[in-house]
């Protein structure tokens, strides 16, 4: 429906108003037909105003159907409003309401409270969630405070806080799946209601937020200028950003605490509105809020209409993400982005090391020692022990994992460095590009739909998924010359679809979900010796292959004009680099799962260490990635012995801690 609607765009001269109007009609039609099916239009409308004595049907309508409709409108509007604010302040079309870690903070707070102080949940889970989200935001602000809340630092801080809290939640989830199964439903964003309490909580807060946004309208418009011009107008950028982001986080926190994580709306609604032609901040805020509300309500009405055909619960939040993804992918080529200008200050500045080669040597020595440690030291039933290098009985279990973690560390780090340098976007990582997301979707479907898939089938299916993602990336962006920003948006869309599939699967409560969590979070558990050797060999080969590309990587971030002037064929170089990134990511994902985040962290870590020129950056990242993964794998196996924490999680925790420390120092 929506697709047809947007296809008419050029004929109708689609404006934000017309888009919202059409969507509103669709939503009304769906809602009233659902209402007629449930009880008849008149009885349905009566049920809105009470009448709990009029039988079960009216009761369900009054306490479930109507609050749900209201909730979907409120939540969608709130998230879209927060999304516009985020994108405005951070000057990044990839920014979403959850960018600053609000949802992951709320999630972790809820999980920890459930396990450690369930009494607090009786007081009110909304407050626990709000507090968690607030603390996560405070951490991000603390990290970026000294740099005046500069967008790049805020985005980086948000990313790493998101990762960190997400990794901690996965640890809790792995070990306490039974206790936390209810929270998985929350995590997937179910809009089901059974009284008016949620709406009563959310409505006044959103109204307050909208009012504040209106008051902030004029000063916020200044943020469209660059920093120097804004300052010359006498604006305190830091205070302005604090206000804007704080408001966005407050809105997000309120929504998330009531209905859980609803993906995509906050990212897509502002982008669609911009596509439809809203340029200035005021109209964008207004129309995005309306569009967000209508998008979520329409999706939810569609879902209620057709979910009867599947048994069990399909959470709305997960569905918006999954269904929204194709829409976003289709929209991206039509989106007016700043295009080929060099993005200003897109990478966090860091000091250059005076002798990068010596530093690399140090890293190599560290890597060698950690490898020896990981192979020979470990716990058994009898406690800590030191194995002799000849003891194959024990080494047969350890060697494949060390090989695979080193190999995957190298590959993900290289992929991350390539993609971050090409796109000049610090949020870019192989995970964001959607290639691992695609292969993960395929693998999850295979685990759940095939009776008992063996490992070879899984590898094949995963490869197919990765190739499908790559095809989508190239087909939909080929005509625009593989513009980095569009590639990333496409990747974000695929990743959003993956998040939706994952959340649905986890919320369903299938016991196999635990296996999925373990694999998703980056585990070397399933590696055997052959694949370990293959992975490491491939990693070294691809590392050699990428070193001649260093010149491109130094020049491409300078922008399209400069690159062309220096004789680089943009399309060809971008395609080649993209293929290389895809190959690196797909191989690593098939072994350690899609959520290791080494690809995001290692390039930043290398930069913080002082590897700045592309060639050195590649080398430094590869070494850092391998070091991080091998260390993480070993720590993960020992920390909670006999339980094993997946290497990807530990890598996020170790690397994230160092990263936060480095960010503070900037």
């Amino acid at each position, binding site marked *: 429906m929506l697709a047809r609607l947007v296809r008419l765009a050029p004929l109708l001269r689609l404006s934000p108003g017309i888009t919202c109007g059409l969507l509103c009609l669709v939503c009304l039609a769906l809602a009233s037909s659902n209402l007629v099916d449930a009880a008849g239009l008149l009885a349905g409308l009566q049920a809105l105003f009470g009448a709990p004595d009029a039988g079960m049907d009216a009761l369900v309508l009054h306490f479930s159907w109507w609050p749900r409709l209201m909730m979907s409108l409120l939540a969608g509007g709130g998230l879209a409003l927060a999304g516009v604010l985020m994108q405005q302040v951070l000057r990044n079309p990839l920014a979403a309401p959850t960018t600053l870690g609000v949802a992951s903070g709320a999630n972790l707070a809820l999980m920890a409270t459930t396990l450690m102080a369930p009494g607090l949940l009786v007081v009110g889970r909304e407050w626990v969630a709000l507090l968690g989200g607030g603390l996560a935001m405070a951490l991000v602000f603390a990290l970026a405070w000294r740099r005046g809340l500069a967008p790049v630092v805020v985005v980086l801080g948000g990313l790493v806080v998101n990762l960190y809290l997400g990794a901690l939640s996965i640890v809790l989830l792995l070990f306490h799946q039974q206790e936390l199964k209810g929270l998985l439903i929350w995590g997937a964003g179910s809009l*089901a209601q*059974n009284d008016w309490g949620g709406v009563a909580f959310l409505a006044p807060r959103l109204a307050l937020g909208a009012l504040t946004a209106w008051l902030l309208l004029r000063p916020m418009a200044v943020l469209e200028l660059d920093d120097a011009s804004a300052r010359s107008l006498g604006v305190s950028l830091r205070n302005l950003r604090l206000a804007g982001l704080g408001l966005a986080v407050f809105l997000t926190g309120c929504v998330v605490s009531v209905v859980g994580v609803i993906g995509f709306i906050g990212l897509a609604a502002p982008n669609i509105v911009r596509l439809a032609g809203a340029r200035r901040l005021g109209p964008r805020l207004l129309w995005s809020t309306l569009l967000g509300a209508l998008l979520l309500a329409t999706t939810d009405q569609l879902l209620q209409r057709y979910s009867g055909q599947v048994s069990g619960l399909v959470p709305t939040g997960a569905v918006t993400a999954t269904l929204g993804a194709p829409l976003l992918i289709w929209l991206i080529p039509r989106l007016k982005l700043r295009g080929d200008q060099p993005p200003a200050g897109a990478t966090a500045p860091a000091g250059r090391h005076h002798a990068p080669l010596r530093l690399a040597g140090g890293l190599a020595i560290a890597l060698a020692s950690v490898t020896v440690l990981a192979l020979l030291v470990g716990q058994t039933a009898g406690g800590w022990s030191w194995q002799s290098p000849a003891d194959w009985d024990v080494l047969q279990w350890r060697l494949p994992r060390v090989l695979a973690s080193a190999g995957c560390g190298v590959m993900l780090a290289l992929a991350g460095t390539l993609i971050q340098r090409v796109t000049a976007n610090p949020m870019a990582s192989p995970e964001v590009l959607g290639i691992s997301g695609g292969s993960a979707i395929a693998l999850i479907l295979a685990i759940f739909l095939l009776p008992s898939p063996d490992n070879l089938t899984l590898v094949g299916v995963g490869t197919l998924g990765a190739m499908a993602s790559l095809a989508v990336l190239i087909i939909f962006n080929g005509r625009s010359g593989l513009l980095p920003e569009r590639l990333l948006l496409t990747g974000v869309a695929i990743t959003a679809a993956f998040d939706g599939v994952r959340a649905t699967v986890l919320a369903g*409560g299938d016991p196999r979900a635990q296996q999925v969590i373990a694999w998703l979070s980056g585990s070397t558990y399933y590696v055997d010796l052959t694949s370990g050797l293959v992975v490491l060999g491939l990693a070294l080969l691809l590392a050699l292959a990428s070193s001649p590309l260093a010149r491109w990587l130094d020049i491409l971030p300078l922008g399209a004009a400069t690159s062309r002037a220096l004789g680089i064929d943009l399309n060809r170089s971008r395609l080649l680099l993209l293929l290389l990134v895809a190959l690196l990511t797909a191989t690593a994902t098939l072994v350690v799962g899609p959520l290791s985040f080494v690809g995001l962290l290692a390039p930043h870590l290398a930069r913080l260490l002082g590897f700045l020129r592309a060639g050195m950056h590649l080398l430094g990242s590869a070494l850092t990635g391998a070091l991080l993964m091998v260390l993480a794998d070993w720590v993960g196996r020992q920390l909670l012995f*006999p339980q094993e924490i997946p290497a990807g999680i530990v890598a996020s925790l170790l690397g994230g801690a160092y990263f936060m420390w480095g960010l503070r120092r900037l």
Partner: protein
Amino acid sequence: MTLLTRSSPVRRPRPLLARHALLFALAMAMLLSAPLAMAASPRIATLDWTLAETLQALGTPPAAVAQIEAYHDWVGKPRLPDSVIDLGLRTQPNLELLADLDPDRILISPMFANLTPRLSRIAPVENFSLYSPGKNTWKEMRQLTRGVAAVVNRPGAAEQLIDTTEARIRELRQQLPDNIPPLLVVQFMDARHVRVFGDNGLYQAVMKRLGLENAWPGDTNAWGFSLVGLEALANLDARLVVVKPYPAGVRAALEQSGLWQGLKQQSQGEPLVLPPVWSFGALPSAQRFAEQLTTALETADAR
């Protein structure tokens, strides 16, 4: 019940403790009149709690089980003996530790089948399925009990376990009051969602043997439940049965919920609240659920 669950003295010492072997053997010789049984029952490691529960009920507790602490929380009674070693996560048992323990057999369920190549490098692996869609659950439960008993060379114990459980459930069926309405068995996930149990699950299998009807008309997944919003329970002519635990804060939220109050009104009699039972369990869990359900129905009826 107590007779079946008491840990049996036929456990062998672990080879690691070779120094104590002599001492142990002496103790065993004093305890056992038939030392032959020692050689007859192998050391078992299992990843699956249902199999662990069955092994324990057969009088041969496993030597190692995955996630013991969580086992005690969710499967509950009877506790595993303290000597049982924890293998780590069920989905990713610690292979180094398992290899070090060197069990004679490893028992798994189909959920862990993808680990078979790895595990079989350590010891022969046996795969037991329960709750397969389309199969008679109770029949499968008997088969599983016999199969596990065959692995530990105690076929007699299997027959005894099956007979006592079935006899006890027959007895309970006699005790049940007349005219019990169809039951709707749910477990709260949060204040807005429940798992409702139907075909292919433990609760359904037990209810069928007790001659009780399940009111859930919808489908269930391969694990015998369906996750639904509370509103899906409306307009069902049934008595609600809530299996604990309530997640934290849910009971307070339900007090406020207009929909839940309406559902309580609709229920044929006050909703019954049962203590937790491992919903993917085998015969011991089945008997426990039968006892609890019967007691709840009797007391509710007497009131």
